[in-house]
């Protein structure tokens, strides 16, 4: 049975700039998301949007200090959390929602999936959730073949974990000892269904990985430092050639599955408790202040900088033109 990952963490052991970077990344992710929702409400962005608010710690913690540009990620369809943490310019992500040529797809639009930034190791994403489980073993295999120390991190939800592909993926990864890190963002729901309604598990989703002999654990995904530590260990294991790790990171959606979802299938009290007591940003800010690493004012200033950065990104994305009609005939073949 999957064990819960714990570690004595002393905030003071981290350089201040690292801690502030975690904070800034999380705040940027949230503000990006809030502003995107505004753009939707203003009718400027269409399609599905699955807000990532509430799980910023998971992405910031796993990516920021652990991965380099040459490491690959397959993000999931919730928020743009992982893309932002991996450094994809905000204007480009907004461009992908607005459909302007500023987007990574140069005007095709990408919505919540299909942004890509290969130079930063962001290899894109499928519209069929969970398909990244298959691709990730291929990318990791490429690194193994080239004998680099690149790692591949694949994000997917609890719901996506029920896709048949998980089996093929875990088997390849374990068999060929591939440098893949599985991060299952378990927010307990797949659209309207609670994990308990759709998953047959011993106790945790991570238990599914156990039979493959793949090291696995469950972790509080809303604790940015814990996420950093657990992924750090997995990255080291991968780089030592010891193969994959499966991490089930627990979190919760603050908003409905997609913008427009009535979100009436969730116990309001449960939701409120998550918001009140387990917000990754609020909690981390409180810790930074209580441990006297940063004053409130410093954090406020950071927030202002981020607001500015986001406003500029949106402006830039909005200012770019829509593509010509002929855009759709470009780029099918290399």
């Amino acid at each position, binding site marked *: 049975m999957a064990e819960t990952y714990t570690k004595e963490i002393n905030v003071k052991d981290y350089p201040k700039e690292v801690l502030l970077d975690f904070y800034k990344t999380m705040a940027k992710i949230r503000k990006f998301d809030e502003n995107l929702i505004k753009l939707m409400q203003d009718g400027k962005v269409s399609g599905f949007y699955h807000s990532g608010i509430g799980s910023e710690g998971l992405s910031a913690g796993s990516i920021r200090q652990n991965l380099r540009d040459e490491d690959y990620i397959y993000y999931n369809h919730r928020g743009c959390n992982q893309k932002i943490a991996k450094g994809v310019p905000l204007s480009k992500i907004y461009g992908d929602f607005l459909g302007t040529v500023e987007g990574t797809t140069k005007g095709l*639009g990408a919505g919540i999936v299909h942004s890509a930034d290969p130079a930063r190791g962001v290899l894109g994403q499928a519209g069929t959730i969970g398909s990244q489980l298959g691709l990730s073993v291929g990318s990791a295999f490429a690194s193994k073949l080239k004998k680099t120390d690149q790692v591949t991190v694949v994000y997917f939800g609890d719901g996506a974990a029920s896709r048949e592909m998980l089996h093929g993926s875990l088997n390849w990864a374990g068999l060929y000892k591939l440098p893949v890190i599985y991060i299952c963002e378990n927010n307990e729901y797949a659209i309207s269904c609670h994990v308990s309604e759709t998953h047959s598990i011993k106790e945790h989703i991570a238990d599914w990985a156990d039979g493959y002999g793949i090291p696995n654990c469950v972790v509080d995904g809303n604790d940015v430092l814990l996420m950093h530590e657990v992924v750090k260990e997995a990255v080291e294991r991968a780089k030592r050639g010891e193969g994959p790790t499966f991490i089930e990171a627990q979190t919760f959606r603050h908003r409905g599955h997609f913008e427009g979802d009535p979100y009436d299938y969730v116990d309001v009290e449960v939701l409120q408790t998550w918001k009140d007591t387990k917000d990754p940003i609020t909690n981390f800010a409180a810790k930074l202040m209580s441990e006297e690493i940063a004053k409130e004012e410093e954090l406020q200033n950071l927030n202002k900088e981020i607001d500015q950065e986001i406003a500029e990104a949106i402006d830039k994305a909005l200012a770019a033109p829509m593509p010509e009609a002929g855009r759709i005939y470009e780029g099918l073949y290399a």
Partner: protein
Amino acid sequence: MRKLTMRNALIEALNEEMERDATTVLFGEDVGKFGGINAVTKGLQEKFGADRVFDTPIAEPTIVAAAVGMAITGNVRPIPELQFGDFVGIAFDEVFNKMGKWRFMHGGQMEMPVTLRLPIGIAGGAGPEHSQSPQALFMHGPGLQIVIPSTPYDAKGLLKTAIRDNNAVLFFEHKMLYDLKGEVPEEEYLIPFGKADVKREGSDVTIIATALQVHTALQAAEELEAQGVEVEVIDPRTLAPLDMETILASVRKTGRALIVHEEPKTGGSGAEIAAQIQEGALFDLAAPIKRIGSPDVPIAQSIYLEQFYVPNKEQIIQQVNELMEY
């Protein structure tokens, strides 16, 4: 007559058939508690219970395989849903080779009363993997009946027929039609498979269109009438079986044919229909059979670009005018 949206017509059909036959079961992702992301299964779980209307894990091959496994026991009549028709690619082997062929390849000893519902079509920036119209692929798959309604009336009557049918049915619902209203009688009715519907009569050009494009064609026909061109609009309603008789009769009359669908043009249902028209009525043709489909490129996510994919009235009018030049 009362008017219903296609969504409500479908809900009625499901309700009536599930009431009528206690062996029917309905399942898929979020179809129970949530009532389906397109709200087509709203209220069914409350009414028929969670045993007969249930939510499944996100596992499309298993959903379809389970439906096949239920059906061949002879004890259950499954009505599974794929949340987006695009996902039929994930369950392709189960649909194409198991649902379609299990009965035949085991000597005809079992029946396959499965109705698989598949929402399709470009609708609001859903992107390349949530906007496709994959129905043509299954014309190449023996053992699969393909239903693709364009009106609430047809949707209800065809869905009821599908559920009662003892053979596999793929039921494609264009998402842009869910809110379309149309007349639906209170009384029960069924619509047989393989019977095209002439949605509009005309003597100059035959348009064969499916799903949303039936409406675009009808709009174009109206404008063309003002120009003095009489367009006949035929909706095959089922692509398998395909009512070539009605289509050929019309083309023999008009001598001009245009096929319009949202599927990419190449390899679309229009290819087979065009091939059969020329086989059956070559010497009646005054002009080459034309086809309008979406471009042969993946569907961009941008809602702005979607307009360059969905066939539109202007394209139809232009093609008809070109046909009239012969």
